[in-house]
């Protein structure tokens, strides 16, 4: 076993580090879910694409550099270490793109992926519905066969990025007579098409990070079906791991957060007194260490997974609980100042969503118990 980087990997990492060093601004961009913020974040994506760094693992033809998984991991670590902007294109880049590369046609990949990489087309996801959350297979939104395509109607909700996005992807019931896991079709549609209404939902942090999408007889051409009509569940599930696992949540963000937590600890009264000031301090120190160990474990698992992948459900359970714990620790260290420290409260509120989105942790435990441990339903 070793953690050595070959010359190629070191060269790639240096390239990424140099690019980020020159281009990441010290002042953060405006919030991504505002018009000004969205424009600034799209411009950032274009800059990444021009440097060939928007999607390093994609095939070269679609705007990537066919980089091995190790390089994608190094990119993630450098990206977060540099404090680079949130990826406005992340739903497309990390969720739709793997699905297209696995199940899409060459025409679809060539048409969809390059503008996605450049930030010209930002994608939202359209999975959940008011009565289909954890029980995703109970989707009711319909796709009815039309002339040369499908006509969508129904309601999607909790659609991340839909407020600022151009297009969306999701599952629709196309064959209503079939058993519920069958008869679903995976479709891409235009959020500005006639019949689409996007209503922002204000989140508990005050931002409009997600939205409802109302569809009223929205036409989608056959060219925007991914896989076979009626086979959408299988298509979606075959790449669901991307949402839960390492491709959405690389270790970089947690390594960076743990680093900030250590800095916070060092500057806190408990940290400067080096743990000599009573029982309260001792508790905090232990939690700081455990948070750091958790981030370190996730990072090392990412390297281990290059050889032997761990289940996406286990990965999702681990990062989401670890992230919440890390931020709880930071807030507790800040004490009465915590609520007026947006640098941490923002991350804290975001971390609380982790155990819910991408399939709740309860669902993940069920999947893990069944698929990894072989326990009966």
């Amino acid at each position: 076993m070793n953690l050595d980087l070959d010359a190629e990997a070191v060269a790639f990492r240096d390239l990424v580090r140099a690019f980020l060093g020159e281009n990441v601004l010290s002042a953060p961009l405006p919030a991504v879910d505002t018009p000004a913020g969205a424009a600034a974040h799209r411009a950032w994506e274009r800059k990444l694409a021009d440097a060939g760094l928007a999607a390093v693992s994609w095939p070269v033809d679609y705007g990537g550099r066919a980089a091995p998984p190790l390089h994608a991991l190094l990119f993630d670590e450098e990206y977060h270490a540099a404090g680079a902007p949130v990826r406005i294109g992340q739903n497309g880049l990390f969720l739709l793109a793997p699905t297209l590369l696995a199940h899409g046609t060459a025409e679809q990949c060539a048409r969809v992926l390059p503008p996605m990489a450049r930030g010209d087309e930002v994608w939202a996801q359209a999975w959940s519905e008011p009565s289909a959350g954890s029980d995703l297979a109970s989707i009711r939104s319909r796709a009815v066969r039309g002339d040369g395509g499908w006509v969508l109607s129904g309601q999607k909700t909790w659609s991340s990025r839909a407020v600022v996005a151009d297009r969306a992807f999701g599952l629709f019931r196309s064959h209503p007579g079939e058993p519920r896991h069958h008869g679903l079709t995976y479709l891409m549609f235009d959020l500005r098409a006639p019949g689409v209404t996007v209503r922002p939902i204000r989140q508990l942090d005050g931002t409009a990070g997600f939205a409802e999408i109302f569809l009223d007889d929205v036409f989608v051409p056959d060219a925007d079906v991914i896989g076979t009509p009626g086979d959408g569940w299988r298509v979606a599930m075959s790449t669901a791991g991307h949402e839960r696992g390492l491709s959405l949540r690389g270790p970089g963000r947690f390594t960076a957060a743990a680093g900030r937590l250590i800095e916070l600890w060092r500057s806190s009264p408990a940290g400067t007194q080096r743990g000599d000031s009573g029982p309260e301090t001792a508790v905090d120190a232990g939690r700081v260490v455990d948070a750091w160990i958790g981030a370190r474990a996730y990072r090392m698992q990412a390297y281990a997974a290059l050889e032997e992948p761990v289940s996406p459900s286990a990965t999702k359970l681990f990062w989401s609980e670890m992230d919440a714990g890390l931020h709880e620790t930071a807030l507790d260290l800040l004490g009465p100042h915590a609520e007026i420290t947006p640098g941490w409260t923002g991350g804290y509120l975001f971390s609380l969503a982790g155990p819910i989105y991408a399939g709740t942790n309860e669902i993940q435990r069920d999947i893990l118990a069944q698929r990894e441990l072989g326990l009966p339903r």
Partner: protein
Amino acid sequence: MRLGPSEEQRRFAQVLHEMLTGNESAPMRRLWAALGDVGVTGLTVPERYGGLGAGADDLVVACEQLGRHAVAGPVAESIAAAPALLPGDVRRLPGLVTGRLIASLAAAPWLPYALDGDAVDLLLLVDGDTVHLGRAGEVHRSMDPARRLVAVQRGALVGTGRPVGRALDLGVLACSAQLLGAGRALLDMSVEHARTRTQFGRPIGAFQAVRHRLADVSVALDFARPLLYAAAVALNETGGSAAVTLDETGGSAAVTLDRASGIPAADVDAGRDVSAAKVACGRAALLAARTALQVHGAIGYTAEHRLGRYLTLVRALHLSWGTPDQHRRRVLAAISGGPDGPIGVREAPQAGATAGDPTPQPVSGLGAASDADVASESRGGLQSAGAGVARTEEERS
């Protein structure tokens, strides 16, 4: 870049697993001789003394299997730590290799007693960077019926300026691997029980109250293992530099480190990684043990069920070779010097790299024993272990 067992290491683990199956409660002497035959006891001993000169990662692979079978006896003491405490010891190393010589040791504050110190051939007492022979004192019966903790009195001097930090880190690493292996075995037996035990007309593993707990155990084990491997890699990296400690420019982290653990540090990052692994493996194993008992119910509480053997072993090892609190202190001292650094540890540090790279400064100083054996022969491998296996099979046939 590989943070997981190679094909060769997997095969080695499988051979060991098969050898141990059914022999878990063999007498210590017979078991140690068998471990000698397959190369386990000589893993980290340089080849010139008959060992395999293998790395810390090979040690981890082997000790995971020993933990999986809840093997009793001074595993970390005799197999991991003792060889490193006795560099160049022509009289003792060959015996450790064959398993005919079994060692134990005390090294306060991590190991205030010597495990099975009244039953071993070689008893050591570690004090700073000095190693003495020990004399067995009072014998204490453990909560774990398979363990006896023995007070140790100082005997003759064996040597001073020994690479104690590295030796003890190897012991902690081995103990962590045992914990992880035991945790995995506990999960496996719990899953098996949850699949077959029926209540209310269903296998109990169909109830979320049960299956979610087992899922949490699985996650804890899955994410402890990479820390163990990373710690082994870190120890391999420092294998040739037993002299590494920190100078004044290394900052307060080094000083705090020594005070926090009370033990000379082989290397800040290796010590940090070893401690992180011990905390995570101990926590995962303990969760596995408590969950296993709850899933099994009363049958798991009986003396004849093997679960109890694992439960008491895990609880004992969790607090042995340094308590979680002692190891957290060591991690804290190390990371207070800066955040997690870059991967690719063999590179020279670069100016202007990620803020606060905690790249340690290799200098001579405290505990700077020359350890040519470890330096020049630390990496051999399992090729010769394969030969050992073949030999055993010939003997059997």
